[in-house]
């Protein structure tokens, strides 16, 4: 059975239909890339999978590990193994990042019926992962994302992903804001998390990320639907010719691919 099965998903925000019958199947161990023009609904899909309030699901379903994800609170989804690295991580002044990481990690473990981390174990783990991501220790003394550069925020997302060890990682434009070296480092960290039991959905506009994190499947989204799916060569094709071939032809392409 698929790890994640999104079927015919229709989502509205404020009376406007943004996802218009989206179908996507992700199996354990696979890496999927989602590409598509600005505004096609990629972040919306990631938010709906993570359970962000404010979206109205009018049709379709999301099944994760055989369970109806749409019935769960965001925190329950996290406990089941869903992780979203945000396109735009928020700043939370006054909440120290270490307090945050620890509270989050222990909340997840508690929800899964696991024992909480001891302080030394926790610190050791954070130190290990942050080191591999080239995150300076003094960055960890600040408020969550407060005053972080765009790239630092993204690295902090990957840090959390590595700490929480989810079974489905959704990376929404992890590459935006990262310099070339940071991209390489973050990608290495993501690659290190590849495992037969874990799947990833990588949302990106650029081939250079997919050179580092090589996908098994590439999807093209347009106007709230997946309009084409293919192997990693599809991304190269897009890099060369852009989205012009897909724009406005959603329905036609969809028919062919069914």
């Amino acid at each position, binding site marked *: 059975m698929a790890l994640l099965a999104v079927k015919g998903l229709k989502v509205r925000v404020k009376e406007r239909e943004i996802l218009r019958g989206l179908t996507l199947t992700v199996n354990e161990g696979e890496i999927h890339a989602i590409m598509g023009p600005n505004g096609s609904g990629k972040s919306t899909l990631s938010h709906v999978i*993570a359970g962000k*309030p404010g979206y109205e699901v009018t049709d379709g379903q999301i099944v994760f590990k055989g369970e109806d994800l749409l019935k769960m*609170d965001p925190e329950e989804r996290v406990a089941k193994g869903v992780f979203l690295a945000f396109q735009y991580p928020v700043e*939370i002044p006054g*909440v120290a990042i270490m307090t*945050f990481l620890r509270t*989050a990690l222990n909340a997840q473990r508690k929800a899964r019926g696991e024992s909480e981390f001891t302080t030394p174990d926790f610190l050791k783990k954070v130190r290990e992962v942050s080191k591999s991501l080239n995150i300076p220790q003094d960055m960890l003394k600040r408020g969550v994302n407060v005053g972080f550069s765009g790239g630092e925020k993204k690295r902090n997302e990957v840090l959390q992903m590595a700490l929480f060890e989810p079974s489905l990682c959704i990376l929404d434009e992890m590459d935006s804001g990262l310099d070339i070296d940071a991209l390489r480092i973050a990608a290495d960290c993501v690659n290190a998390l590849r495992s037969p039991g874990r799947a990833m959905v990588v949302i990106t506009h650029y081939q250079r990320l997919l050179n580092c994190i090589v996908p098994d499947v590439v999807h093209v989204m347009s106007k709230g639907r997946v309009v084409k799916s293919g192997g990693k060569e599809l991304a190269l094709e897009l890099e060369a010719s852009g989205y012009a071939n897909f724009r406005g032809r959603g329905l036609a392409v969809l028919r062919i691919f069914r």
Partner: protein
Amino acid sequence: MTLALANTNPECPARDVFTAALGRLPGAGAVAYARARAFDAFERAGLPHQRLEEWTCTDLRVLMRAVLPLAPLPDVAALVRAKAAVAQTALEGAAKLVLVDGVFAPDLSDLAAFGEGVDVKTVPEFLEYPAGADLLITFATDPMISLNAAMVTDGVVVTLGDGVALSPPIQIIHVATQALSSAFTRSHLKLGKSAQATLVESFVAADGASAYQVHDAVIAQIGEGANLSHLRVVADAADATNISSRIMTVHEKATVSSFNMTYGGTVTRYQGFITLAGARSELSINCVNLLNDTQHGDTTLVIDHAAPRCTSEGNFRCVVDDRGHSVFQGRIIAKAQKSQGTMMTRALLLSDEAKADNKPDLQIFADDVTCGHAATSGALDDSLLFYLRARGLPEKEAQALLIQAFLGEAIEEIADAGLREFVSARVARWLETRR
């Protein structure tokens, strides 16, 4: 309820309470005369109501309705219950002065902890002196201060000599043990020139106390160059009423930093009248209200810049849930040149029915002053909440983290680590009860 119902003289129910209490009120002669006059002043005004400018948001005729009779003198059983409550609220290392139902309890207090240069008396002792009546001052025709002057049964008078630095914090603990009755206390703190002290005030309920009233006043004189750290925590029973007044005079180059936290009581009013009477004196005052259920919490501050080059910095934060109602009135009166006064208020509303009235007010009578105020009010940020939940925090826990962050900026203003921890622990406990 029988006690309250018995108290229904339509002319002035409070007069019955006063008359019944006379036998217990310490002081004769000038003191008794001052009491009678203070009561007359209260009687003329009655309980404050919403048509009085200072009380527009807190109508005691509706919220409090009647003055309850004096609580009986605490017996052995009451003192045993009080002792348990004191143990829960004592600040580590503090020299405690405990008032149980408005009566000083020497056995629960640490009189021996006050060393050389510090004089501690109880109010009944003090009222025997010719100057005793000075303790019963009234202020700005405020009816509740008048009532307090008339009815005060006990309190402490603490005097630090010039240059005395008292190292243990003084902790005045008010414990209620009874139901449907009142305690009237008044204390006096005098810091000599360049003296230093920390004053902590705690208001708590012992097991079994309910629907009681606390009427308290503190009069403080902060001498030239002296330094006072002040922390006040209202943790009264959920159905109690607490009406407290602070009248403070700050002399030249003295510094006062004050933090108030109210999270107990169904109706509370904390009114501070602070006069910066000496040039270059400095006041930092932070207040936090944590209210839920139908709690009504009013903090009213009047800061009078009477001497030049004084600074005052006020920060007020409230977190209001359910049908709670927080009131903040802050007035800066800038009479003297080079006055610098700021007042910031921020309200965090956790439910649609929660309410916060913020009324900062500047009265400027000099041309060279820097004064300002700002107020914001809002709910928790949804995008921050979602971020935390998307990391696995249950909703209430995510809220708690954001509320702590909201309060943190005010709590960080507390310089002393021990006091800061005392406050943080209580905030954490309050958040715990919301889960």
